[in-house]
């Protein structure tokens, strides 16, 4: 009886999971692996027209990428986004979370939803909105700056301002998501601990450093892993707001892959970019996971 039941259960298990597994194998695993193979070929527009024009070229795509200044520009830009954007967004999210978690706050759910709202909006639509907000002459951002005496900034037209401009947008768009995760962690910090430190005369900053931050360190790590992964995947933001310009200052690695693959149809070279992107994300994630394990988190 029980053996029959077990066989039935196993059959049902496979039957229920196989459609999803088949889809994952067909549309996710297979293309990901195929990407590696594609990166060793010279698949281009000619090969798309006629497969006779396809050759195996070994590491040539990688070698040429390394020589390509635009690839390095995209790499540097992406790393800049990661290096500047991650601390900025994590700090912003933590600030918002602490504000919403404050025991003196009234109507908490209202503020929580308001701060989260940008995250669910359509990226392309809000990128269009921000393109106008950041307009040099008529933009609201420069208007607010002018009120405190800062001269207009050519946010999307100057190679020095374009990256901060996109980061402001990305920060606005995503901090709500991280805030929710921080909020959940903050709620596990015992109020008594904080209270005790306060009675001992510890100031706001001391309590943040010695009580709150240690308690939420694992979460901070999780949030930074997610943010780094997000920074590596910026595409629609430069596509809509700057088209990679000015002077290629906002070409990200994914934008470069898109142009290589779907604008110039060098699929072989594009696949090599994709694979390098994957290695970057993997490396960063592994480093962060190792840090997490050492810290005893997750």
């Amino acid at each position, binding site marked *: 009886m029980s053996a029959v039941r077990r066989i039935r259960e196993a*059959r*049902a298990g496979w*039957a229920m999971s*196989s459609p999803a597994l088949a889809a994952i194998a067909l549309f996710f695993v297979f293309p990901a692996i195929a990407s590696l193979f594609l990166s060793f070929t010279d698949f281009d527009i*000619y090969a798309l*027209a006629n497969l*006779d024009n396809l*050759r195996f070229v070994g590491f040539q795509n990688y070698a040429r990428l390394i020589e390509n200044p635009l690839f390095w520009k995209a790499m540097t830009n992406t790393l800049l986004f990661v290096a500047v954007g991650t601390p900025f967004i994590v700090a912003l999210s933590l600030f918002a979370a602490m504000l919403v978690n404050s025991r003196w706050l009234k109507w908490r759910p209202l503020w929580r939803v308001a701060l989260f709202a940008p995250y669910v909006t359509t990226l392309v639509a809000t990128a269009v909105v921000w393109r106008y907000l950041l307009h040099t002459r008529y933009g609201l951002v420069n208007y607010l700056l002018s009120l405190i005496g800062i001269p207009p900034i050519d946010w999307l037209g100057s190679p020095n301002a374009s990256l901060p401009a996109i980061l402001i947008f990305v920060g606005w768009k995503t901090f709500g998501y991280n805030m929710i995760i921080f909020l959940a962690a903050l709620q596990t910090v015992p109020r008594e601990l904080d209270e005790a430190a306060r009675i001992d005369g510890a100031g706001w900053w001391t309590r943040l450093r010695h009580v709150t931050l240690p308690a939420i360190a694992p979460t901070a790590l999780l949030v930074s892993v997610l943010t780094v992964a997000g920074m590596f995947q910026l595409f629609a933001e430069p596509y809509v707001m700057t088209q990679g310009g000015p002077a290629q200052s906002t070409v990200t690695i994914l934008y470069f892959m898109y142009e290589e693959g*779907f604008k110039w*149809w060098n699929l072989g070279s594009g696949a090599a970019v994709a694979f390098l992107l994957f290695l970057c994300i993997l490396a960063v994630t592994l480093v962060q996971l190792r840090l997490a394990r050492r810290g005893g988190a997750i």
Partner: protein
Amino acid sequence: MQVTRRQITSALAALPLLPMIGSCGAQNGDGLTIWAMGNEAASLPALLKSLDLPAGAQNVTVQPLPWTAAHEKLLTGFAGNALPTIGQVGNSWIAEMAAIGAIEPVPASAHALLDDQFAAVVDTNRIAGQTWAVPWYVDTRLQFYRKDMFARAGYEAPPLDWAGWKAALNRVKAAAGDGNYAVLLPVNEFEQLLTIALSAGARLLRDRNARGAFSDPAFKAALAFYKSLFDEKLAPVVSATQISNIWNEFARGFFSIFTSGPWTIGDMKRRLPAALQDKWGTAPNPGPNGVGSAAPGGSSLVVFAGTKSPDAAWDLVARLLAPSAQLKFHQLTGDLPARRAVWREAGLVSDPVVAPFATQLEHATALPKVPEWERIVTEMQIVAERMVRGQYGIDEAAAEIDRRADRLLEKRRWMLDKGLAL
């Protein structure tokens, strides 16, 4: 167990549905679709309405593509078998479209449309003995100059031979005063060096367009002339992005010549201060001994391969190229018509600002017709910029451009060997 199976079946049943969802919309039934770009796409509906298409003719739909995304849309359309019937294609993309078999050659019945056109433009669309597209509107690049600055230097217009031209630039620079230059050649734009090279008669590529010919004496002469303009401080070493507002700089005399196309005429009228409106003009490019050359530009109309009714498609192309339609098209867009009869009819030959474009188009030279050209010329400029900044000598720069071009053409050579390339 039955329910589980039903669950699975319903999931799997959804899979065959996919191609069905796929099929709806891929082809939108009867009617012709035209893909067009920017300004031209915006004016096409009005133009089509003015054509008086015969009763019973197919419905024509215009799908606009942004210029910045047009190239990738054409190729995605090809990859996805989603190309429409007719398309506006930039002349520099024709070689690529023909090489991958995306477009039909122009049939003999439509060859009459190519008469009365600028030879260099038609030549651009001739590949492997066949014409692949009908030029629709034309453009090219020539000099925009400050008449008042040249007058101050003692000239009515820029001389058309290199030696005289350079002498004039020296005097213009002197007249413009300290800190100013004579000509703007942004070091990140390839068009200026390319114009000089074409004027010098450089062939650019050799061996069935499978290798670079940048070490030819003609191209080296062009490189030397280009470099001397920077070395003699006639042109500032700047890239286009460093010039924040080209109109302001032109107006204040930072430079008195720059190279651009007919689209700039409207900008000049709009953006230059009123006091300068009668103080600028256009002139053909200089060459080693008289009028120089330029690359012909503009867009052509193509009929995509595998279309169901090529006859109807070519009929519509013919109607769009009719002189009356070309005139209307010029009025709607300001584009320069491909057919020369229309130039006279529209009064363009007597327009002092536009007429030099006709002269220049008569002295234009078709660029190498290989899909790799755009990337080659980009590499050419990267090397040329380094040469201007002192990293390469002229011979070294020429060799380096050849090396890069040969690498980009490696696949073409392999395909030529196998008989796979046009």
